[in-house]
Structures are given as structure tokens and as C-alpha cells.
């Protein structure tokens, strides 16, 4: 059992958990993810790694209660544990391979949407530990869903907030804020890292392509084993099929076929749900984006 040492509710139905997992904590690097299983009957759920402490042997994750297994996870308390906690999985972020000179010369902008704050945090922290202050945009529907603002502010002075309803910071989409920062305020970014819902990453990629800024996205695809065995995580990048679990999760966002990736994410929605979605689409005349 992998014991939960600390649990707190960050926002409605979104929890932070610090879990005892010495092997994972020892090996984790920015950009990697892990898989948890709540109990014997649970699914294997891929989650991003929010923080890790090799000395303490702990790993911090975010979890949102949305499905059967994640609801059971959310119901766990401090002292309870996960049946399984596997990782780290995937390739570390490319930036950890940069030379100190290149790091110092690169201006990073991280765009974190919703739970994307979790995988962005270790990258910004890793940079801060090396004296590199990255810019961060945290995007959320409203103020109550902004995650980890204080933690980011402790690492870098340039933290921007965007909310859909304007309850905090910039009112509007992260893409518009990004554009404003670059075009109107004249900020220069050499690399954008966008992590959040697929739809957000798609539009960040479109925006940065226009702006001519190289961009990386971290793909939260479906997975079973997370080690290259099942191929559920297939994505098309630059016209080639890649496995997000072993070759990713981070890819050149300008090369990713996001429409296919979004469609594939919905593969195991039940037939009933698909029918309902199709019906809603027909009635409302809008494109349904459940699960995006």
C-alpha cells in the first residue's frame, strides 16, 4: 500500500495528495507522470506528478473526482493508501537536457489550464532552482478553480491569471492573454509549454504558431499499462503514430493532431453517453465537448 500522508481540497472536487512512494520520488523528473490504482477493482489512472521529494520519499499528485475510480480516490483520507502507485513514466521534459547557457538564454512561458498546474509546477520549480525565472499563465473557469497560485508566486514573479468569467485576473481565454502579453506588451518568449485540457492546448498551439513561438504540449491520452504495451495512447505527431506513454507525454505542439487526440480521448465513453452527446448536439446545434 502507498500511504497518503497529506490530503487537502484545493477546489471543489479537486484534491492534493502527498503519497509515500520512495522509489517513484527517488526517480521522478519534471515532465513525467505516474499511474495509480485505488483498490483491487479500480482502473489504472494516469496522473501527472505535481511534486516529489526524494529525501522524504514522497510524491504529490492532484486528483479530480470525475469517474468511478477517481471518486473512490477522492474519498480516501490521510492514513489510507493506494493499492498501486507506478512510475515515473514517460520521458522527462526536454528542458532538463538544456545546457546552463541555453537555459539562461531561454525565456519560458508556461500555460497551465485547470489541473495542468500540477505537471507545470515541477518544471517551473526545476528552473527556479537553477536561477531561471519562467513566466506562468494559470487559466481557470473562475477564481475558485485557480490552482497553486501561491506556490507558483513563490518561484517566480511573473505569474498571470486568466479566468473565463473575469472573477480574477484577465477576463478571457489563456490564448488571448498570451497574445496580449506578446503582441501588445512586447514580451519575448522562446518556448511555450502548454499543459491542460486538449482543447486549450490545441488553441495555444494555433496561437503560438501564428506568433512563431516553439511550443510543447503534454498529452493526457487514454492509457492502460503506461509502458508501451497497449497502444491506447496512440497520437499522430508530424504525420506519424507515436505512443504518448513512452515517447511522450510531451511533444511539439505544432505537430500534434489535436482533433484526433480529442476524439480518441472519448473512446470509452459509453455508447449511451455518445448517443446522448449526439442528441444534445442535434438539438442545440452546438458541438459537444464532454470529456475534453
Amino acid at each position, binding site marked *: 500500500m502507498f500511504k497518503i500522508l497529506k490530503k487537502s481540497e484545493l477546489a471543489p472536487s479537486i484534491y492534493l495528495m502527498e503519497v509515500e512512494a520512495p*522509489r*517513484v520520488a527517488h*526517480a521522478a523528473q519534471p515532465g*513525467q507522470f505516474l499511474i495509480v*490504482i485505488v483498490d483491487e*477493482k*479500480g*482502473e*489504472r489512472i494516469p496522473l501527472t506528478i505535481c511534486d516529489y521529494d526524494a529525501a522524504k520519499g514522497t510524491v504529490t499528485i492532484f486528483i479530480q473526482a470525475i*469517474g*468511478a*475510480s477517481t471518486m473512490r480516490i477522492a474519498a480516501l483520507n490521510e492514513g489510507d493508501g493506494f*493499492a*498501486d*502507485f*507506478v*512510475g*515515473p*513514466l514517460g520521458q522527462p521534459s526536454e528542458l532538463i537536457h538544456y545546457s546552463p547557457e541555453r537555459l539562461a538564454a531561454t525565456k519560458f512561458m508556461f500555460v497551465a489550464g485547470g489541473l495542468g498546474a500540477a505537471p507545470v509546477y515541477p518544471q517551473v520549480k526545476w528552473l527556479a532552482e537553477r536561477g531561471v525565472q519562467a513566466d506562468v499563465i494559470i487559466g481557470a473557469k473562475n477564481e475558485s478553480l485557480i490552482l497553486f497560485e501561491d506556490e507558483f508566486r513563490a518561484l517566480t514573479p511573473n505569474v498571470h491569471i486568466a479566468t473565463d468569467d473575469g472573477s480574477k485576473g484577465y477576463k478571457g481565454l489563456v490564448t488571448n492573454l498570451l497574445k496580449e502579453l506578446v503582441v501588445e506588451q512586447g514580451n519575448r518568449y522562446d518556448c511555450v509549454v502548454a499543459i491542460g485540457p486538449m482543447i486549450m492546448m490545441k488553441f495555444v498551439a494555433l496561437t503560438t504558431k501564428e506568433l512563431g513561438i516553439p511550443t510543447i504540449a503534454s498529452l493526457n491520452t487514454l492509457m*492502460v*499499462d503506461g*509502458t*508501451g*504495451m*497497449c*497502444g*491506447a495512447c*496512440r497520437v*499522430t505527431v508530424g504525420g506519424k*503514430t507515436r505512443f504518448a506513454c*513512452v515517447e511522450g507525454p510531451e511533444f511539439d505542439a505544432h505537430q500534434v493532431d489535436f482533433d*484526433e487526440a480529442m*476524439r*480518441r480521448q*472519448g*473512446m*470509452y465513453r*459509453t*455508447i449511451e453517453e455518445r448517443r446522448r452527446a*449526439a442528441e444534445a448536439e442535434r438539438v442545440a446545434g452546438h458541438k459537444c465537448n464532454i470529456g475534453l
Partner: protein
Amino acid sequence: MANKIPRVPVREQDPKVRATNFEEVCYGYNLEEASLEATRCLGCKKPRCVEACPVSVKIPDFIHCIVEGDVAAAARVIAQDSLLPSVCGRVCPQETQCEGACILGVKGEPVAIGKLERFVGDWGREQGVALAEAAPHNGHKVAVVGSGPAGLACAADLAKIGYGVTVFEVLHRAGGVLQYGIPEFRLPKERVVGPEIENVRRLGVKIETDVVVGRTVTVDQLMDEEGFEAVFIGSGAGLPRFMGIPGENLNGVVSANEFLTRTNLMHAYDRQYDTPIYTGGRVVVVGGGNVAMDAVRTAKRLGAEASIVYRRSETELPARREEVHHAKEEGIDFRMLTNPAEILGDERGWVKGIRCVRMELGEPDASGRRSPVEIPGSEFEIPCDVVIMALGTSPNPLIAATTPGLETNRRGCVEATDEGATTREGVFAGGDAVTGAATVILAMGAGRRAAAAIDAYIRSKN
């Protein structure tokens, strides 16, 4: 003198009934049937069956014990060479190994060695027969990567002679392909796989699940930081192949690995588990091996109309005869000499069919099998909702990529001698990781040979 009776038939679940459940197909022999079948063995002085067995089970000896009425002794005879008799009795291709070599098979039916082995394994387990014992700990530690047949066989042999063995398994349950690949209806997990793995644990072998060697910990770290003097790599061949045809990333196209892992390891057929699975109404499985048969029969049991599409003819099907026979009995539709050219999708990106080409057999290729050639202008469509690709698997490159000095060949297989020595000192390998996808018993044989080589290596160092 051996009895000249015909081979004792084995009882099976009715095909119509079993096509709707996940209970085991074959019931196996009872004591009476096994005792009768055992009397057919001639007890050859130079037993060809033993030579044909990759782990050299002393077949005439254990069969003789059954004839004598001492099944516990039979169990102990098998345990000298195999700790997985209930598994091997079920999934070994006996027709090309022990039974294929049986002298009775020349003129009639060979002795049902597989069914007898299964009986002994099951009986021994149910009666709690104490099998092998481990020697006192010799102070040396060996790490085994992968808890499939190769790793378990290697671990058991090393533990028996006193090594401290830890097996690292990437998934959350031990067993490798026995757990995620082979379906419940051929190999029951709780009743058979679990207890046989428990027998390996009872020898003192530690199994640590949820460890991704190459990510969670590297081979170098195991040797330099955790004190393992040798490492055996039995990580199998888990990487699925796809065809590279248009439409392969449509929703509804899955690898056999994904489909089988969801049902076997993750119990998708059991509503108590959270695992989702999608079969739609019509499932097409592309391929003709044992994995293809497992996938198509699983799809059938989940309620689909299930077909096999294979580019050669029935004679070339690489699956075991028994599996093809069982599949046909269960109502699987076989479409031979048919090759997919494109997977067709609807406007929402879901599979709606496969465009196929009819094939004919041409000249034999390098493997000796006649190679299929397209018949021009023969394209046609098969409507379906799900396509399962069962085209074979190759070894996962993760361990080789993270272990300096460990060479692989161009097929991604770890380079190793027959005894399991790799290009890296102290690192041994065997099973599918070395050969590419093969059988449970060949992997066990490789694991055992590597165990002997590891013992010799560690002795030479001390």
C-alpha cells in the same frame, strides 16, 4: 504392459454455453480418467517426450506414479523441473512438443501428457502437496526483471539453491502474459495462476510489483546501489504491432494487447470492476496466432459477432489446432486469404468497416510458408464496429535503452547466448525478450538455463 485402449477423451464445457461465459473451456481429467489414460504410456527406455520438452519434465516417471496411484509423488516429480504444471498442462503446445514426439502417435493417438500434467498440477495444489524446498540462503542476491514464465522459472531455480531473489514486475499483478494475455477461459487466474505463483513465493522469492525497470529503477542501480550481483531480464515481448494502413487511429481500433489486458488483467468482463471495454456489435480480429484466437473468443464472450481475418489460408494459421478448433465450435467466423487495406470510419471518427483485398498463395517464402499475393481488383468491405490488431508483438525497448552495454538485434530482441549471457557482464536474459514472442514453456526453459548460468557466474566471482 501398457494398455491398448484409445486416448481417454477430456470433458469440455458445451460450446454454445461457454461462448457466453468466461468459465474454463476444458474441465480436465478426474482421478479415474487420469489413472486410465496413464496406463497407455509405454514407459519408453529412451523417452522421446522428455527430449521434446523444453524443461525436460520426467514424463514417464510422473505418469508411472499416477499408474501406481501416488499422485502426490507425481506432483513432486514434475516439481523438480517445473513449478507451473497447471499452467503448462493448459497452455503448452503439446502437439509439437511432448505429445508430438510420443511413439504412440506414430500409429494412433499420443498419450494425453498435457492433460495428465494438468491433472497432477491441479490435484497437487488442491491437496496441498508440499513441493520443492529452498536451500538455506547463500548470502547472494539476484534480481529478476519480469514475473512472467521466464522470470518465475529463473527465480524458482535460483531460490531452490539458496539465492535471495527479488522479482520486479511492472504491472500490479504478478504473472506477466499469464495474467494480462491468456484469457480466464483458458487459464483461470485465481484458481491456477495465483496459487502457482504463490508456490514460487513460498521458496522465498520476493515479488515487488509496480516497478518499471528502466524508469523506477535502472539495471545499473539494482547492481550498484541495491546489491544484486546479477540481473535476469525476462521482460517478455509486450510491444504491439500495427499494420500502418489508413484509418488505424480511428476510435474502435485497438491492439490485442489492450483488448486482452482490459479483460484479463483489469477484469473488464466483470461488472464489479471499473474497467471499460468496447466491443460494439461486430468485431474483426486481424491475425491468425494464439493471441488472435484469444482476442476473438473473448470478443464473442462479451457478446459480439466475432470474425478472424487472416491473409494466408487455414493450413498456415500459426495458432494451436486446439484453439482454432475451439474457436470454430464457439461460432467464430473465419475469413481466410483476406488482407485489410484500410479501416473505414464514420463522420464521427468511429470504425464502420474494413476494406479488404482477397489473397492467393504464391511461392514459399524464407520461413517456408507460402506467401500471400493480392488478387488485383478483388477489394471488398466488411462492416464492423471494432478492429483488433493481433499481428504479433516485439520486446519493449525500455530496459535495453536504459542499460549501457546491453545490445539488442535489429528486431529489438536482447542479444543473448543459449545460456542467457548478454553483452553486459552480470546481466542475463531469456524468454520472449530474447526470442521475440514464443511460448510459455520455451520462456521457462530459457529462465532455467539462465538460472544455471547465473549460479556459475556468481560462483566464479566468489
